[in-house]
């Protein structure tokens, strides 16, 4: 498990960070996912299933966090809400093109959760359709159609044909 964690923790924390916009929450979700894997050692018959399992756990953990987050923020002003779940652009990359990046991230955030998940899994984790399907618990054809719709919506938001 240590080796699995060492190999994939950074990528999974970054993935959770992209979904949640908060470092601590991202770390918590990943730690909890590995704790869940630890509790299920015995039931794992195939070592190849460990990573897909923990990836799905991270995704589910992010969904839970986002549901809680939405409830917690329900009474807040819209302007504050707009700030809440967007990773803050760091100084180094700010020099390059903070506005462009912010635009893409804002457009991503406006997508429905499932569409956003598909795009992050595909374009950040570089997962195949089959892997995305396994992580999300949906069929590969649904992954394809969801990604197509997500890119279309993103393109319209960014005023660029997909």
């Amino acid at each position: 498990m240590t080796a699995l964690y060492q190999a994939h923790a950074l990528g999974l924390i970054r993935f959770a960070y992209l979904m949640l916009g908060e470092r601590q929450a991202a770390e918590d979700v990943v730690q909890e996912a590995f704790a869940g894997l630890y509790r299920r050692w015995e039931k794992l018959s195939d070592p190849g299933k460990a990573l897909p399992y923990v990836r799905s756990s991270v995704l589910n953990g992010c969904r839970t966090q986002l549901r809680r987050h939405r409830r917690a923020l329900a009474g807040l002003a819209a302007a504050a809400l707009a700030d809440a779940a967007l990773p803050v652009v760091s100084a180094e990359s700010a020099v390059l093109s903070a506005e462009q990046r912010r635009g893409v991230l804002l457009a991503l955030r406006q997508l429905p959760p499932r569409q956003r998940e598909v795009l992050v899994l595909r374009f950040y984790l570089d997962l195949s359709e089959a892997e995305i399907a396994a992580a999300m618990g949906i069929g590969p054809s649904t992954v394809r159609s969801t990604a197509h719709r997500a890119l279309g919506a993103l393109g319209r938001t960014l005023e660029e044909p997909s």
Partner: protein
Amino acid sequence: MSTLEDRVRWALRETAEDISPVDVPLLRLPDGAGRGPAGRGRLAHGWRGWPPWLTPLAAAAAVAAVVAATLILTGGPARPGPHRTWQDALLARAPRYYIVLTDTGRTHGWPRQAQVRATRTGRIVATRTAPRPGNAFLMVAAAASVGRYVLAAQPMALKQQKVIGLSGRPVSGKTVAVQVPAGPIRFYQLRISSSGQVSALSPLPVPALPADANLYGLALTPDGRKLAVATRTGGPRPGPEIQVDTLATGAQRVWTWPGAQPVEESLGGTGSALSWAADDRTLAFQRLIDGRYKVRLLDTAAPGHRLAASRPALSVDWTGMETSRRFSHGRAVNDTDTFGALLTPDGSKIVVATVTQSFHPLTSEFAFTEFSARTGKVVAVLGRWRFTRRWPEQEQAVLWTNVDGSTLLVLAHRPGVTLNPRPPDPGAVFPVEFGVLRGNRYTPLPGQPRLGRLSIFPAW
């Protein structure tokens, strides 16, 4: 960017790199009892042994556990292994060490000793004495994530002053020794390595402040490369001055605001009048103007030297000392007594200790309120604690925040303490202590220094 897919991929990867490899915490696993491979419950259902593919991983995990245990015993990294309680987990979120400036009992008030303490245990790891001759420490700033600390020190001279009696006239023949500034304010650094080694104090190439200068704030960028110093200009229109020094080169930039109110906080020299965002260019500073504390954000990478060019971010009512505190019969009023604001390193929030009070019934509700740095509106309230029957001292402060304000190190009245003296005891006080707060979970720091010995709050 050629295609939409490329733009998405690029934006996600750029953003994901906000999390660097060194940010990844060590793996924390749950306690084994009843669960996991070594749990009794597992054995009761028939232990089938480790799957063959897990054997090398299990061995690695065992080695990691031994290393983690060793680090706990030696005061090593703060996240070494499974935490037995949620209090342990909470403490592990704080920086590993903090610095306390304390007097030695023979120094007439100003601290002459810097103690490096382990956050998780309170153990004094090292002590450093102020440089000779006769220096006292004034303030300390920390960049804990890189183990760099800056201490301001100044030579002090002992002066005998006459004791003033209750009548306002000197008491005949009685004097008291006090320390008065006797030389320039200089800056020194102290390093703590990842293995916990504490360096000697060494002078920094930062221009000294004159002996009669007042130091209002001190803050290191999270990367430890730049030091912000708040002081006050002289001349016909004295006003706040902020210096930013690049420690590696000694290069300095200065911003001034002639005739304006000084940069200050009301906590008594915590240094929290200044705080940096993790972008190492956005500096928050605060001033008290006409009964309102105002926090502004200065872009230190932008050209110019006018503090007035900074952006207003937050304005909070402040009613000042106890004599001027507003009372409102039967309804709560928002009231902030002591005021020290910290900008979260991600630049998104400003964290302030606040109190809401009501007179009938007599209650005080303490909290740590987070305001959006963009809109000034409240976005979160942590640790909302209510005290009844008796008015506690209004001593509460935020001393450190993690990147997004979800975990704080605070000075707080101990939650859950009920003080209901009959008859009322005017000398009774609510305990005040340092602790870690995350959401509404709070735990006091173990082995913390006694507050009565500190004239300056610790720095993390």
